[in-house]
């Protein structure tokens, strides 16, 4: 969808969503010409609503890729998505979309998004490898295609719910202290620079004991409603190496994923 087309579409959406009007009434003969032209120009309400849903889901997806997403914005977008879903469920259109189930490849995409945001416990159960394989595909340059596939197929009732829960887990770093996804993101970001690997640097500052599942879970339990949290002093200790330039070669990915899964 070209940028101009997208803009045109949102301008139409503006008209539709001004007062939450559901349908346009095409009575009145005097207006027939105008309304017919209007009818052609303004896509159906359902289509527009679907477009808004897609846009919102893309926005939420982008949230995942940003470093530290704005929680307020994410909550508002998620609430909008839920609103649309509720209305679609009442309309019965939800059922329709459900039946147009995704193909095999699309399911892979769904799974990959889901795993992106799982808690450390689920990841420790060894579900990392699928993420890696999907990400490898992304790196081969099919990223934009993936996004549109995700957008159009993420309408099954299951995934949006997961998206939301996973999103909050992402944004709840305390509970996800052992979240390997962040480390993966860091790795993939550096793939652009192909220089001699300093994979050791990547992990040298990290205290491996922290990725021990027990430590993480214990940390979660002991984190009572205090304003001050001891666990958070960690960043200050490791912030000395703020300029560490982590460069990694594509061939090192296997090695890295092994390390993460093992620890």
């Amino acid at each position, binding site marked *: 969808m070209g940028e101009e087309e997208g803009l045109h579409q949102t301008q139409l959406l503006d008209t539709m969503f001004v007062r939450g009007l559901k349908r346009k009434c095409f009575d009145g003969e005097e207006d027939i010409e105008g309304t017919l032209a209007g009818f052609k120009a303004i896509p159906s309400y359902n289509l527009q609503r679907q477009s808004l849903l897609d846009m919102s889901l893309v926005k939420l997806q982008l949230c995942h890729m940003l470093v530290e997403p704005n929680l307020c914005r994410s909550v508002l977008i998620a609430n909008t998505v839920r609103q649309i879903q509720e209305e679609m469920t009442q309309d019965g259109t939800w059922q329709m979309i459900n039946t147009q189930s995704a193909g095999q490849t699309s399911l892979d995409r769904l799974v990959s998004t889901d795993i992106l945001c799982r808690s450390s416990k689920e990841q420790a159960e060894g579900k990392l490898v699928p993420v890696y394989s999907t990400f490898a595909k992304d790196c081969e340059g099919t990223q934009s295609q993936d996004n549109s596939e995700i957008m159009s197929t993420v309408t099954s009732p299951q995934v949006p719910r997961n998206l939301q829960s996973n999103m909050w887990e992402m944004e709840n*770093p305390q509970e996800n202290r052992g979240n390997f996804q962040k480390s993966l993101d860091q790795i993939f970001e550096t793939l652009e620079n192909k220089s001699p690997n300093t994979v050791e640097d990547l992990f040298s500052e990290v205290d491996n004991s922290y990725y021990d599942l027990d430590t993480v879970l214990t940390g979660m339990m002991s984190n009572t409603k205090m304003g001050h949290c001891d666990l958070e002093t960690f960043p200050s200790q490791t912030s000395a190496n703020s300029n560490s330039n982590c460069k990694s070669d594509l061939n090192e990915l296997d090695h890295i994923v092994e390390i993460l899964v093992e620890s």
Partner: protein
Amino acid sequence: MAFPDSDIISTVEFNHTGELLATGDKGGRVVIFQREQESKNQPHRRGEYNVYSTFQSHEPEFDYLKSLEIEEKINKIRWLPQQNAAYFLLSTNDKTVKLWKVSERDKRPEGYNLKDEDGRLRDPSMITMLRVPVLRPMDLMVEATPRRVFANAHTYHINSISVNSDYETYMSADDLRINLWNFEITNQSFNIVDIKPANMEELTEVITAAEFHPHHCNTFVYSSSKGTIRLCDMRASALCDRHSKFFEEPEDPSNRSFFSEIISSISDVKFSHSGRYIMTRDYLTVKVWDLNMENRPIETYQVHDYLRSKLCSLYENDCIFDKFECVWNGSDSVIMTGSYNNFFRMFDRNTKRDVTLEASRENSKPRAILKPRKVCVGGKRRKDEISVDSLDFSKKILHTAWHPSENIIAVAATNNLYIFQDKVN
């Protein structure tokens, strides 16, 4: 014109006398302006603001555990009331609050016994007499020193800080929690509000702003992304999860759309100087509430209602999430808030008149009078009007400040700071 992102002003605040004006920017710097003393020789200069001090308040940090960058952008600055010759302010980024002391040095001691003027130690055998060092004048030096660092108390992003009227405590609020601090204690804070659900899947509302009552040190308010304001009394319980008052306007069903909730999200809440009212800013309006009436605001002002038909576009380009601030004038009779296209709006609560002004270089030569601006909605555009579609949404005025007692306002337009004063007759 290109400018670095780090120059974008992210907060503006006058101190309690209006003598100083502080700005914080995206690069973590604080710049303080001081008002010139009025002199009889140059009456037309009538108290201009000049740079007084500049310092780096926050640095970018990297959280290795979460693999997240912590931005150095200054989210808020709040001044403490002046108690001695030095000035104190609080500045905060997303995670850490700092107390800065800004003090002047215009004298230095001379005539030490044990060291000479260069600082080198003198040979003790050469010292034959005792003398008292004397203070001699030197060039004025303004130095800023960090006196306290309040760190590691916020998991989420700090959006507000507010100094209590007891001048001993202050609060910091993030998306889900509010903490109470004592200025003297940096390794501890009390959590007074916590709206984090046990299951994050159930999260549907966040805290957007918070402020202490100007006179009652036990009372504070916080606003939410659902357009509600809660007033809490710290005497009621240690954890103020249950509000004393709940302010919410019932929704207008005829105006309902998918964007209703987003535009109802409150971006700023401010007590009036009197302490009797609170003002809230949501995407399209500014509302004044009487603390004694919870079911609806007493006044509602339309900031830029012409955007109501553009909400979907504004949702797409994320402008709908812009957080505008609002301010009272010293007498609580006029309120001001920003808009797009470098426009800002003032509403006179008594006369019910409002004005739209623009903060731009082309339109404001020094001492020129600002011309009111108008946005035209319909088809026919008058000569000086600007049409909605021509508005520049990248030029947003999110931060403004009003002098505590005079008609002097500070307006931050992206990377530029404008200071406007009432015309002298």
